[in-house]
């Protein structure tokens, strides 16, 4: 087990997969000579050459479509979209082609591409660099969506995504690339489905994914130390398909539930998880479940406004305490 940063874990997965299969390629803006905006492909251009580590023009729909077309004939492209805000431009090829081609060809043709992209609000990047899109992609049949919350997942999910025959969208976060964590030294493949209980507790469940897992863990510590409330934390690293059984099992243990997401609430991950609470856990719940979500605004530039728009561990704590009226 070694400590490494999230970007280093991604870089290692890229390197191993490029080395394992000559038909694996990496494509994206500034991922070659420059090594990637977040260093996920650092040094790989020199190692594997310009035919396999490809600096693309700024044509998100075009190069995503090109990667999808290449995947039709056996190439395994890892497509990096520098910011998820730019992936809106590639939704045509991702949704209309990659997600649907297996079905509409009656199973003849698949699009085994990986599309990696950081979403989320970083520091004062403004409305057009702070969006999240996982809510869009997780509603599209034929597409898998995963979202690593730590370096181990970043490594193992990318490894499995490259080998998987389905198109996989990997939702990352601009603020998480320098996060440190343990990654096994031996090669491993993380499941693309399921969820993970990352903290055990009997009083309520805090569901999170990607960055909000960390708010939930911080909140759980405070709830335990200051309020005597033991929270279970569940990491929903797979957003499509969502782990219905895992969600149901946790709520059956704790009978109270919160889902925390960085995105705005409407038609979101939280909305979907709330629907699962309703459909699967209605009689297990001792209190109405709560969504912790962003304000429904384009993300502002002003730092104070930006902070106010995005939830944090404090919002998760406040939501949790509201479920225990006696414990304030």
């Amino acid at each position: 087990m070694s400590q490494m940063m999230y970007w280093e874990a991604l870089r290692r997965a890229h390197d191993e997969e490029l080395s394992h299969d000559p038909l694996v390629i990496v494509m994206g803006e500034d991922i070659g000579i420059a090594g990637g905006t977040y260093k996920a492909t650092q040094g790989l251009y020199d190692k594997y050459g310009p035919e396999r580590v490809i600096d693309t023009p700024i044509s998100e729909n075009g190069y995503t479509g090109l990667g999808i077309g290449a995947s039709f004939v056996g190439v395994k492209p890892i497509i990096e979209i520098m910011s998820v805000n730019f992936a809106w431009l590639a939704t045509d090829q991702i949704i209309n082609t990659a997600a649907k081609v297996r079905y509409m060809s009656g199973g003849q043709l698949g699009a085994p591409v990986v599309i990696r992209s950081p979403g989320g609000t970083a520091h004062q990047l403004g409305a057009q660099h702070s969006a999240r899109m996982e809510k869009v992609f997780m509603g599209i049949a034929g597409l898998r969506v995963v979202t690593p919350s730590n370096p181990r997942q970043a490594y193992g999910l990318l490894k499995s995504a490259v080998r998987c025959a389905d198109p996989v969208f990997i939702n990352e976060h601009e603020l998480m690339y320098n996060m440190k964590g343990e990654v096994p030294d031996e090669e491993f493949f993380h499941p693309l489905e399921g969820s993970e209980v990352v903290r055990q507790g009997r009083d309520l469940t805090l569901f999170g994914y990607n960055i909000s897992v960390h708010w939930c863990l911080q909140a759980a510590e405070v709830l335990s130390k200051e309020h005597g409330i033991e929270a279970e934390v569940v990491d929903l690293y797979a957003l499509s398909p969502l782990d219905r059984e895992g969600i149901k099992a946790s709520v059956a243990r704790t009978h109270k539930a919160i889902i925390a997401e960085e995105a705005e609430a409407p038609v979101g991950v939280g909305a979907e998880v709330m629907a699962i609470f309703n459909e699967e856990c209605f009689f297990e719940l001792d209190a109405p479940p709560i969504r912790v979500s962003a304000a429904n605004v384009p993300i502002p530039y002003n730092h104070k406004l930006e902070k106010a728009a995005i939830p944090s561990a404090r919002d998760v704590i406040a939501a949790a305490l509201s479920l225990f009226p006696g414990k304030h």
Partner: protein
Amino acid sequence: MKVMPGYAQQGVAENDSALLSVTDKKRLLREMLYARRFEERCYEAYVERKIGGFLHLYSGEEACAHGVLEAARPGYDYVMTSYRDHIHAIKCGSDPRKVMAELFAKEGGTCKGRGGSMHIFDVEHRFMGGYALVGGPFPLAAGIAKGIKMKGGDEISICFLGDAANNQGTFHESLNMAKVWDLPVLYVCENNLYGIGTRIDRSTAVQDQYKRAAAYDIPATQVDGQDVEVVYAAAKQAIEHVRSGNGPYFLELMTYRYRGHSMSDSNAYRSKDEERSWLKRDPIHILRNRLIDSQDLTLSEFKDMDKAIIEEIENEVIAYAEQSPEPAVEDLEKYVLAENDPYVHGGAS
């Protein structure tokens, strides 16, 4: 034939008829006539409500797909196109019975009734799909070319699309990448002068589409798309360019569709005079008359051929499509994702 300055193509117009043997020409005539009868039978089946959804017919444009693919290696080269895709698939080697069964939404169709008229796929014959988003295949075809190049094969990628697709961003993004990376892709523009119901001069600043390829330094030619021999000759040169590793090529074929954009089209945007003038340049008649003039065919032989085709379509193609079962409702969710992929659960290790 018009050629972009700086991209002189020689000998195409002069030697057209010398390139194909009489046997080949007679076979092509039969294939194009078969295509016409196939499409016209689709029209009837649509009216009879045997075919649902949207139906886009190729009648009038037969010389384009047949001329280009005759010069290519159908079943070996990768081909994709738009939603007007039945005939391209058949020329690539698809069984017409399976294409018709797909239109009839049957399990025996090319895509087991999941695709429909706009989404014919036949990967075994390297027909890589009909796509319903205008301009969608541009980058996909470039991607197939990237794959060919990586694997070191001598196949090429051929992408047929209409003139109106060139007003999509994917046209520009894809031609740019194809040139920057020297990809073995042939873009064939079937210029039928209308984007759905809007005439090209009302929607498009530069009406000669081959000129637009110059923006990406891609050699381009514009030729008559109604004369299959002219198309064949131009395609032969274009394909040789691409297959020899010289990068992409753009071939514009001037053509006309007799039916509306789709079956739901009133055709009110075109004059009868215009339609009549194009009917005089029917691709089947051009080749038929040439073969009759050279005494290689008689009118009665042609009529017999036509009769045999109509019967074959009825007795074999339509009968197969009628008899094929519908997909089972229990299989509704099949083909959404790959089956039993070990990496979904963390790999085999």
